[in-house]
């Protein structure tokens, strides 16, 4: 029957759906329709030649679809693999059930001839596949951080591909022989393989996840080291101030010995008053930082403040209470504060009267982090600076802010208020600390 050639590839639609569900991708309806049609055509054409070809074709097609919609290639292959297994299992279960119902007919033969039987088969298979894939999605994405696969070691990757491919080939070889419908017990073997694949996926992605954690740890360590180095340089500063101080005293004694009151008055106004002021801000900034109770955050702040002061940008820090952030991961806060301070220092450095003010303020259950700086650009487009890749001055400033937005998206309890007024740029982060993130 010729029209069966058009009906059979319909299974590709279920395949598409399964792959879509299992990879948990957000894909536009129209786009998804196009992919479905494409896979229908590809499967339809390749089915005319051989079943193996059609399965391989749809497998590759699905991997590409998942990759094209924002996932890594590994995730693409992995999810396509799962979709394939789910399809085979659904196929076996559906034909097993129908054979039990229509016990008196030659099922395999009839399926090729009767579209009614095919329709029943199609519906059952579809339902099973969807149920299965929804369960799998929960399992894979909620528990195993599949999307965390930022960087994967090449060795791990090769092992992963070889394993999945061999599982795939083995399953396919058995399926092709048509043994599925003859020996329903084979489903058990499939399920065993399936579990094996799950465990394997878990290990691959979990290692990646841990690796990334370690990297973060190393980063934090580096920051701590920087912080210690800064403390040392501060200590040297204090010693030099002490040295200045004894100089001041001896000069004063000089004026007093000569009874030069006018000279002393002059000296007091020109030398001592600014000296006292300098001592106070240097001292104040660092003593204020001791109220930050997260060492890594303290490190980030110290590094950025000192770097700004080296560039002759005065920084004022305003922290009146002990700061310990509970609801946001400290690494995320460090990154956000780091990016915002870098931007603030960069923008301020272009001004005639540069300044950067930092405030950590607690108000009831809300922690407010305010970063204020002087800026030249009166016409900064607040919408565009957050777009990925946008930058007012070359070096990836826009990328920074897009990153901030991305990090913030993880948290329901953060509000970011950005404003610009009279040459002053303000970033205010409100963190609702009454909510406990799980």
């Amino acid at each position, binding site marked *: 029957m010729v029209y069966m050639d058009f009906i059979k590839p319909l299974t590709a639609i279920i395949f598409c759906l399964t792959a879509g569900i299992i990879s948990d991708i957000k894909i536009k309806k129209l786009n998804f329709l196009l992919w479905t049609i494409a896979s229908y055509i590809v499967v339809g054409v390749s089915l005319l030649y051989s079943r193996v070809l059609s399965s391989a074709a749809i497998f590759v097609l699905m991997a590409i679809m998942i990759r094209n919609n924002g996932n890594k290639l590994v995730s693409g292959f992995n999810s396509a693999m799962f979709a394939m297994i789910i399809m085979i299992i659904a196929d076996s279960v559906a034909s097993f059930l129908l054979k039990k119902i229509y016990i008196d007919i030659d099922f395999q033969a009839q399926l090729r001839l009767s579209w009614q039987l095919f329709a029943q088969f199609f519906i059952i298979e579809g339902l099973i596949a969807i149920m299965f894939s929804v369960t799998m999605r929960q399992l894979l994405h909620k528990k195993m951080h599949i999307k965390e696969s930022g960087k994967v070691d090449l060795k791990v990757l090769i092992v992963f591909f070889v394993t999945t491919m061999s599982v795939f080939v083995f399953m396919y070889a058995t399926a092709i022989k048509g043994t599925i419908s003859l020996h329903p017990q084979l489903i058990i073997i499939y399920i065993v393989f399936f579990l094996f694949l799950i465990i394997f996926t878990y290990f691959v992605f979990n290692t990646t996840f841990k690796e990334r954690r370690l990297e973060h740890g190393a980063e934090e360590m580096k920051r701590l080291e920087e912080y210690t180095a800064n403390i040392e340089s501060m200590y040297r500063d204090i010693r030099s101030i002490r040295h200045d101080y004894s100089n001041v005293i001896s000069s004063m004694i000089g004026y007093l010995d000569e009874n030069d009151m006018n000279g002393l008055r002059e000296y007091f106004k020109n030398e001592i008053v600014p000296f006292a002021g300098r001592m106070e801000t240097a001292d*104040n900034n660092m003593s204020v930082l001791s109220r930050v109770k997260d060492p890594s955050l303290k490190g980030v702040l110290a590094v950025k403040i000192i770097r700004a002061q080296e560039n002759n940008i005065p920084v*004022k820090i*305003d922290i009146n209470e002990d700061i310990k952030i509970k609801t946001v991961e400290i690494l995320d806060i460090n990154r956000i504060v780091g990016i915002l301070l870098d931007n603030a220092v960069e923008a301020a450095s272009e001004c005639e009267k540069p300044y950067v003010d930092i405030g950590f303020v607690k*108000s009831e259950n809300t922690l*407010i982090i*305010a970063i204020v700086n002087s800026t030249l650009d009166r016409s900064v487009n607040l919408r565009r600076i957050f777009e990925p890749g946008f930058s007012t001055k070359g070096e990836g400033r826009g990328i920074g802010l897009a990153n901030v937005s991305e990090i913030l998206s993880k948290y*329901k309890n953060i*509000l970011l208020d950005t404003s610009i007024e009279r040459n002053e740029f303000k970033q205010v982060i409100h963190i609702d600390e009454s*909510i406990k993130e799980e």
Partner: protein
Amino acid sequence: MLKIYICEDDKKQLDMITKAVEKAILTEELDMKVEVSSSDPFEILHIVEQSNGPGIYFLDVELNAKIDGIELASNIRNYDPRGFIVFVTTHPELSYLTFKYKVEALDYIIKSENEDLNENIRKCILNANKKFISTKKDTKKFFYAKCGQKVLHIPFEEIIYFETSLTPHKVLIHTLKRRIEFYGHIGEIVRELDDRFYKCHKSYIINKDHISMVDKKTREIFLNGDNVCTASVRAIKGLYDQ
């Protein structure tokens, strides 16, 4: 009538501030009076607790008591959320962000030989009075962007449009000089707005007062400040119908 409260631990300065305030009220002929001027923060709190209506508070930050001026101010805020708080301090540079974000202080006055105390106090009182009068007769509507107990008030007229963020479940508010990103849903926000706003797309709500041009062909709506929103087919028809 606005009541004025003054708290300063140094008796001489307390006297100076009180005199400056009284002088300002007299010369500007304002409907205000000094309710209490004391060096004891708890006395101030006790009186604030029993009175109603917004007041003006001149508080020294470094009080020689169990609580400092900032804590006193946050306690006052519990009873008088709309009051005008002005800090008097020798070290303003240390905590102006705290003044602003912790207790939404109106301003601060620097205690220093070079500063004209009378003039600064007069300016603060006039500023508070202006704000007080404008809030009294004000019919401005606000959008409330919440983050826990903290609420930002954004006047409807300033909002150009709302937009869903690229990241899920976050909404952006755009005004000419401000961008606020917070957790929310466009569908729920549209219910809190009045009829000057129009949901032209599933991810945009625009303020019709800010429309500068509409391109029916490309379905683009141009808004103040270089902003462009796309409208859905149905919405652009609806916009023309209005």
